[in-house]
C-alpha cells in the first residue's frame, strides 16, 4: 500500500458529492464531501412568521420535500400546542409514505440497480409506471410531487374528497403487482458484495410503520435494541452535529457513536416484516443490503397505504386552531432516507426565533466514511485491483442513498 490520494466524483446521487480516499502509512482515511454550495435554510426561516416555515422547508430538497414539509408543520404544531385530528394525521402519514415509496423506486431503478447488472427494459418500464401512479396520487392528494402545499399547521387547506381517496386507492392497488415484481427481481438478481458493518448502530422511530411519527412527542427511538426518549429539550444531548473542514455539510453522531438510518435501520429496529434468518443476518451486517431493505419496504408500505386510506372511510379532516402563541417544538419523522428532525422556537409574536434541522444524510455521513474505510482495508487485504475497489466504494456510498441538497441546507445559526 503506497501513500496516495484518490478523488471519486459520484454520479447517480441526488446532488453532487465527492469521496476523498487517503492512504497514508498503511492507514486509510475516507472523507465524504458535499459539493453543492451551502443554502442556509435555518437562517432563511428565522425572523419570519411561522406560517412561512413549512413552505420554505419544503424547498430544502425537491426529492423528499413532503418529509420536510410535514416535519416542519409538525414541529410548529408542537410549539403552538396544536393536536390535529385522526384523519389529518393519517392523510399526512399517507402522503409521506407515498413519497417514501416513490423515492425508493427511483433509487432502485435509476440509481442503485445499474451498479449490479444491465437492467432489463421490462423492469424499468414497470418501475416508471409504478412511480407514475404514485406521482398521480400525490398530485391528487397534495397537488404536486415536490414543493407541496396541501396543509399548514393546524390541518389541511386543500379539500380531500372521497373521490380523491378512492382514486389513490385504485392507483395503489394497480401498483402493488408492479412493485412486487421489482422486489422479486431485486431479491433474485442482486448479490450484495460481502462486507461487515464496522459500527452496526442504527436508529429508527419505534412507531414505524404503523405511523411514520406519533402525533405528538416525546419520540421514542430504537437503537440496536435500546430505547431512547427524546424531546425538544434533550435532543441535542443525543445528537451532536459537527461541521467538517472538507465538506459543505455537517456530520452528526448519536451518543458519540457513528450510526446509520434509513430503510435498513427501520426494518431491523421494528421487524415489521417476517424475514428468514439468513436475510436478517445480511441486513444486519452488510451496508450494501440497504437496497434490499428499500425494496421490501416499498411493497409493505403500498399495502399499508391502501389499508390506512380505507380506514378513513369518507371522513373529512378538520382544522385545529393553535392554543398558544409561543413555545418550542420538535418533530422527528421517518423520511425516505431515515430520521429527519425539525426544531423551531417561536417568540411571543409567533415568529421564528431559532430553527434547527438535522437531515438523514447528515446523520449517516460518518457511518459512510467508517464503512468505506473498513471496505478499503478489506479490499486491500484481499489484494484487489484499484479500479475494482473504486467501483465498490462508489456502490457502497450509493447504497446509503445520500441526498446532498438536504445535507447542505445548513450552516450554524449565528
Amino acid at each position, binding site marked *: 500500500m503506497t501513500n496516495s490520494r484518490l478523488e471519486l466524483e459520484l*454520479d*447517480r*446521487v*441526488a*446532488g*453532487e458529492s465527492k469521496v476523498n480516499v487517503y492512504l497514508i502509512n498503511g492507514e486509510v482515511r475516507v472523507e465524504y464531501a458535499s459539493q*453543492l*454550495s*451551502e*443554502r*442556509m*435554510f435555518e*437562517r*432563511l426561516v428565522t425572523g419570519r412568521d411561522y406560517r412561512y416555515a413549512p413552505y*420554505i422547508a419544503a*424547498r*430544502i*430538497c*425537491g*426529492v423528499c*420535500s413532503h418529509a420536510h414539509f410535514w416535519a416542519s408543520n409538525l414541529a410548529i404544531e408542537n410549539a403552538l400546542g396544536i393536536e390535529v385530528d385522526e384523519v389529518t394525521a393519517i392523510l399526512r402519514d399517507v402522503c409521506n409514505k407515498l413519497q417514501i415509496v416513490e423515492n425508493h423506486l*427511483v433509487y432502485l431503478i*435509476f*440509481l442503485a440497480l*445499474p451498479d449490479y447488472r444491465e437492467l432489463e427494459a421490462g423492469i424499468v*418500464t414497470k418501475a*416508471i*409506471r409504478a412511480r*407514475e401512479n404514485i406521482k398521480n396520487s400525490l398530485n391528487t392528494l397534495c397537488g*404536486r*410531487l*415536490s*414543493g407541496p402545499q396541501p396543509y399548514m399547521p393546524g390541518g389541511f387547506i386543500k379539500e380531500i374528497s372521497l373521490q380523491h381517496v378512492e382514486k389513490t386507492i385504485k392507483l395503489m392497488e394497480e401498483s402493488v403487482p408492479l412493485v412486487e415484481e421489482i422486489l422479486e427481481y431485486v431479491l433474485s438478481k442482486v448479490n450484495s458484495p460481502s462486507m461487515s458493518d464496522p459500527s452496526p448502530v442504527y436508529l429508527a422511530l419505534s412507531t414505524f410503520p404503523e405511523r411514520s411519527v406519533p402525533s405528538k412527542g416525546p419520540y421514542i427511538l430504537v437503537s440496536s435494541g435500546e430505547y431512547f426518549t427524546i424531546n425538544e429539550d434533550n435532543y441535542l444531548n443525543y445528537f451532536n452535529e459537527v461541521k467538517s473542514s472538507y465538506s459543505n455539510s455537517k456530520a452528526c453522531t448519536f451518543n458519540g457513536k457513528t450510526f446509520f438510518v434509513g430503510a435498513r435501520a427501520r426494518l431491523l429496529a421494528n421487524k415489521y416484516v417476517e424475514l428468514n434468518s439468513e436475510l436478517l443476518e445480511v441486513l444486519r451486517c452488510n451496508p450494501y443490503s440497504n437496497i434490499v431493505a428499500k425494496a421490501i419496504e416499498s411493497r409493505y408500505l403500498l399495502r399499508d397505504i391502501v389499508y390506512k386510506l380505507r380506514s378513513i372511510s369518507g371522513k373529512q379532516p378538520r382544522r385545529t386552531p393553535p392554543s398558544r402563541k409561543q413555545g418550542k417544538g420538535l418533530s422527528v419523522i421517518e423520511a425516505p432516507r431515515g430520521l429527519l428532525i425539525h426544531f423551531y422556537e417561536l417568540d411571543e409574536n409567533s415568529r421564528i426565533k431559532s430553527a434547527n434541522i438535522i437531515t438523514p444524510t447528515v446523520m449517516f455521513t460518518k457511518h459512510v466514511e467508517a464503512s468505506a474505510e473498513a471496505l478499503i482495508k478489506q479490499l486491500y487485504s484481499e489484494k484487489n485491483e484499484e479500479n475494482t475497489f473504486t467501483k465498490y466504494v462508489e456502490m457502497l456510498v450509493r447504497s446509503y442513498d445520500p441526498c446532498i*441538497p438536504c445535507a447542505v441546507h445548513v450552516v450554524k445559526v449565528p
Partner: protein
Amino acid sequence: MKVAFISLTGCEGCLYNVINEDLFNLLEKYNAELVDWRLLGIRKSNEYDVAVVEGSVVSDENAERLKLIREKSKVLIALGACATLGGVQAGLYGENNKPRSTPLHQHVKVDYFVRGCPVKTSEFLSLLELVLKGVKPRVYERRFNLVERPVFKISDRDNFLQLDSSKCIVCGRCIEVCKTMKASVLNYVNRGITTLVSTPYQDPFDKTNCHYCGLCVAYCPAGAVTYKLEPERLRRNKGAEIYIEPEALASLAEAENLDVGQVFAALRLLGYSRIIVYSNTTHVQPGRIYAKSPVEYQILRRTYPNLSVELLVPRIPINAIYVTQCTAWRKQLGNSVTTRELQLLIRSIPRDILEEERENQLSVNLDSSVHVVSDLREVEKAMNKELDHAVVYSACPGGCLMGGGQPLSLGDNALHAVYERRAEILNKYLRSR
C-alpha cells in the same frame, strides 16, 4: 442532437420532476441522445447542443461552470424558479447587501426560461420538443423568454402633448378620463404582462380624436403623459397686462398653500403691473348655448351636428398674457400659459416676501345670468326650450377648477379633497367682492 441536464445550486426538484416516460419517448422520437445527467449516471460527452440547467448561481465555481456550459451549448434552457429568478436561497444577502443567489441570465445569455417551483413537466416537454424539432418557439415567447416591454414615445407635430411609455405604470386613469371626455384616444394595447397604454397604432395625437383637454396630464400619477412646459412665455411679455381666470387663481392659491392676495403679490413681483381677473363667460348673451373651450366645441359638434354653438374665445389683447386652467386654449392661443407653468415661476419666489394684498383695482364681471353645465343631458334640455339665460357647457369633471392645466397640488392629493379646497377658496374670493 445531444442533450445535457445539469444542476447548479438548488433542490434538484425540477430535474427530479421531469424524469418521466414521456421525456424518454420524446428523446427517442427525435433521435436525441442524453450525454450528461449525473443523477442518472450519464456522463458520455462534454459537448452538447441543448443544455437544460437547473439551480441558481451561488458561488464563483457555479458561475465558472455556467460560463463553460454556455460555451459548449447551442441552446440553454433555464429550468425552474432557482434558475430563472434565484429561488428561495435568494432571500439571503451576502456581501454589499447583494443576494447570495443569482439567476442564470445575470451571468450568461439564456435562450428559454421555464418557470415554476417546481416546473410543470408538460410545459417543459413542449418546449423541449420544439427545440429538438429545430422550431423557434415563437408562440411561447412570453412563457419562455424574459419579457421586454416595448418602449415608445407618442407626440404630435408641435411636441405639445407627449406620452412616454417607459414611465407608464398602466394604472389606466388616463384611459378612464379620456373616455369621460368622449375622446377615447388612449386605451390599453397588448396583452398580459406587456400591456401598455397607447393611442391607436401609436399614432401621433393630432391624427387622432384628441381635443387636447389635457386631463390625461392632470390625472397621470407617474408623469408619463406631459405637455410642453414653457414658463419663459411669461417672461417674454414682462410688464404687460396679465389676465387670470378666477379658477386658475383659486387653484394656484390652493396648490401653493397661499392666500389669493399673496398670489397677486407674487404676480406683481414677477413684473406684471396690471392684473385682471377675467373669465370668458363675461361675453355671453342670454338664450344661447356656448362652449367654454375648443374641447366642448368639438364634443358638441360631434354629438349634435345641427346645434348652433358658439365658442367663447377669450378677448385678450395681443401683448397680454392669459393664465388659464385649460390646456386646449393653451394649445390654441400663443400668448396663453397654464396654471402649472405659472406655478413653476411662483415656486421660485421665497414665501416670506409675499405679503397679503388687500386693495385691488380689478375689474371683473361675473354675471349670474350664466348657467354653467357639465352634463350633456343638461345641454339637451336647454336645446329644446326658450332660454332666458345663457348656457355654457364645460366638460371637465369638476369644471374648470379641475381642468387639464391645473397645478400640482401639494396637500392631500385625493381629487375630491383638492376640489373642495379650491371651491372654498373661489367662493370666499367671490363673496369678498
